[in-house]
């Protein structure tokens, strides 16, 4: 059974209040809207289902799961391998930057907090080794990988960690679309409800997958992500 502290940590890591800059990333959604490719909430939901099945599950959750298991086994090399492979599988430069910035900010935040629920993840232990590896340039510190390690250190199970990560990715994309497009708050929540079974399905499918199974296939999103680098109007970092 999940401890109260682990549950609180899961809520904290899923909360938009967590100051790690994830609200500045749209992972291509801004460009979809710039190009008038999404008009209805249903189209938005379908797009995000595509992200879940093409990227979030087979790339992010696979990396997170491997990082979680590696952290449990005190295997820093395993965490670094997940980080390296996720970076290699993420084609648009801005997607990689957004992911690394958020990961770096989460590690930095934990490093500066000594008390409360995050004390369980204090950076003097395994997390400290991983933070040092990132600072030394041995790892890029992608957000799903950092989340996997942090969740494991805080006592969250691998499946729960995957759900935290996938939920955060989905609400991040929905939130970006809501701020940029004309989508009502109830329509956005309805899409989130529709996506819950997909979140659960991809997490079940990928959280314990082998790292070598990682792949990312969302060519249209990748193209939008690359076009965003040269977009004339930009409100998001990716």
């Amino acid at each position, binding site marked *: 059974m999940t401890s109260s502290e682990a549950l609180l940590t899961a809520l904290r890591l899923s909360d938009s*209040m*967590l*100051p790690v800059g994830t*609200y500045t990333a749209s992972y291509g959604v801004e460009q979809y809207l710039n190009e008038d490719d999404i008009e209805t909430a249903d189209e938005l939901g379908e797009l995000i289902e595509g992200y879940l099945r093409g990227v979030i599950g087979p790339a992010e959750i696979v990396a997170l799961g491997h990082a979680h298991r590696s952290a449990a086994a005190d295997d820093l090399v395993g965490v670094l391998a997940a980080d390296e492979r996720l970076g290699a599988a993420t084609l648009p430069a801005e997607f990689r930057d957004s992911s690394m*910035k958020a990961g770096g*900010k989460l590690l930095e935040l934990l490093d500066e907090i000594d008390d409360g629920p995050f004390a369980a993840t204090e950076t003097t232990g395994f997390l400290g080794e991983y933070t040092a590896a990132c600072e030394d340039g041995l790892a890029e510190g992608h957000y799903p990988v950092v989340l996997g390690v942090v969740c494991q250190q805080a006592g969250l199970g691998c499946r729960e960690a995957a759900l935290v990560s996938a939920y955060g990715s989905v609400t991040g994309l929905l939130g970006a679309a809501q701020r940029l497009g004309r989508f009502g708050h109830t329509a956005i929540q309805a899409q989130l409800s529709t996506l819950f079974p997909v979140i659960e399905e991809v997490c079940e499918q990928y959280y314990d997958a082998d790292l070598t199974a990682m792949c990312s296939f969302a060519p249209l999103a990748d193209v939008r992500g690359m076009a965003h680098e040269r977009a004339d109007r*930009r*409100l998001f970092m990716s």
Partner: protein
Amino acid sequence: MGYRDVAKVGLGGPVGSGKTALVQQLVPRLDDAGYNVGVIANDIMTQEDAERLQASFAGRIDEELVAGVETGACPHTGIREDPSMNLDKIDEFTEAHPELDVVLIESGGDNLAATFNPELADYFMFVISVAEGDDIPRKRGPGVTQADLLVINKTDLAPHVDVDLDVLEKDAETVRGEEPTIFTNCKAEEGIEEVIDNIERSVLFA
């Protein structure tokens, strides 16, 4: 070197109040006074805006010390609840330019409730414009009441928009107490030296 090793000055305020015009007045004066300056503009939105800002400081500051930060259509979040991406940019500045003395952080245009996170800005000024009406200070928005310095810009427009500067001054004093308020006309370069004096006294000499 990191964001804690450099003085950080925030400029907030509504859209069109003259924040960018004030930054454009402050940078050359700080540069002439011998300070190494960096500039961050939140939500500059278009490439044209970014290029215009960089061009306005050409020959004064290194192009890589004039940068934009996108705040995901949340300008208030970027300077208050979650300033992590602004802090990240300042870290980039200080790593590449350890000689940096001060970074000016211009917020995206926001409402009267916008304030700067004290971990992002050691000192923040709130810029409003005469053309927004003479009731702005007495609305007691947190930006107006909490700023270290209130700047009331575009004084030249007062007669054209039926605004009494004395009312603005009196209301600002009522809601801000001892905290300073300065009237400026960036176009005519009026009041700018007073702003510089405040920054130097409160931040750079502190």
